């Protein structure tokens, strides 16, 4: 039976919309907050468009993005080797480490419907085999780089507003401001991952694929709905 594409893509559509609505909300509340500061300093208010193309908005967006993609990257890569007894987010204890070509359905073990690059062998299969981590890592590095550039610009703007020298990008990336922005995002991401890994050992969400079946044993590892 053919399903409605809105049903079969419900998860990506829902999160895509939540993302866009949240980003719009951040932009509208951000310009209002920025203009409060402008008025307090006796300066002109700026337009919505000026705000969303400003370094202040860009750094607030990119500092959150980089930490999310770092979270994904670490979770995807570390779960190859690290396991958690009883967690549905973990592989079975015995499966830790890189799995065989047969288990991964690549090269001679590929199926008829396997992706082309999984069948191809050589560098294409090697790249495809790590493509998720590579893409997440690339977006993380780019987002962090953008955070550093836009963060410096926003910081320099504040410095000038308080009659101080703007400094340089090289000074900014070793400054407390940059690392405070970075680490306050990282700690929350790592806490969220840690909570999910541990709480999902003992707690259940009926019918969620992120949970074990409600009646599954606490020490059953790698079992999920």
């Amino acid at each position, binding site marked *: 039976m053919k399903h409605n594409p809105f049903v079969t893509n419900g*998860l*990506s559509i829902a*999160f895509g919309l939540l993302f866009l609505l949240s980003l719009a909300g*951040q932009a509208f509340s951000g310009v209002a907050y920025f203009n409060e500061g402008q008025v307090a*300093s*006796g*300066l*002109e208010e*700026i337009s919505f468009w000026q705000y969303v*193309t*400003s*370094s*202040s*908005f*860009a*750094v*607030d*967006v*990119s*500092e*959150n*993005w980089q*930490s*999310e993609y770092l*979270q*994904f990257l670490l*979770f*995807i890569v570390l*779960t190859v080797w690290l396991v958690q007894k009883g967690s549905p*987010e973990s592989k079975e204890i015995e499966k830790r480490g890189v799995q065989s070509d047969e288990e991964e359905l690549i090269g001679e073990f590929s199926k008829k419907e396997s992706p082309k690059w999984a069948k191809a062998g050589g560098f294409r299969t090697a790249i*495809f085999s790590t*493509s*998720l981590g590579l*893409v*997440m890592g*690339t*977006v993380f590095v*780019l*987002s962090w*780089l*953008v955070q550093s*550039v*836009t963060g410096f*610009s*926003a910081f*320099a*703007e504040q410095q*000038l507003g308080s*009659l*101080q*020298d*703007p400094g340089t990008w090289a000074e900014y990336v070793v400054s407390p401001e940059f690392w405070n*922005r970075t680490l*306050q*995002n990282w700690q*929350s*991401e790592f806490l*969220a991952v840690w909570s999910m890994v541990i709480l999902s050992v003992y707690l259940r969400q009926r019918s969620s*694929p*992120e949970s074990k079946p409600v009646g599954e044993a606490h020490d059953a590892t790698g079992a999920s709905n």
Partner: protein
Amino acid sequence: MTVTYGVWPVGRRGPGPRTALAAAVLTSVLLASIAGCAGANPGTSEAATTALDFHAALGSGDYLRACGLLIPAAVEKLEAGAPGTCADKLSQLDVPAAASVQDSASYGRNAQVVMDQDTLFLARSGDGWKVTAAGCTSRGERPYDCEVEGD
């Protein structure tokens, strides 16, 4: 500043690599364009021109024109206290005469222009720049000490 908690990675049930790659490319392009817009520093030379105009006005004794180049908050601060217009107060201040620009930088809506004998701070106003502080001397890590400044 907001701190968001990510959606949980769906791991083995994640989107296809092609979709992920497309999303990553799109994300990178978006980020790069945001960085491009934010990283550019348009208007630095215009800020320097305003600083030169301000000092030219002071040098020629045209304090009224110099006051017109100040942000309203700086004018208000000058006019606070003892009676007198902005031009009167400006004429009594010891703003070092300066004639050439040595360095200038602008980030977002603020700029700094370093001249031969003075350092000025400016803020965007409409399509141009207004002086927020002048007659400034460096105090290291602390804010500059300025003869003229807004609140």
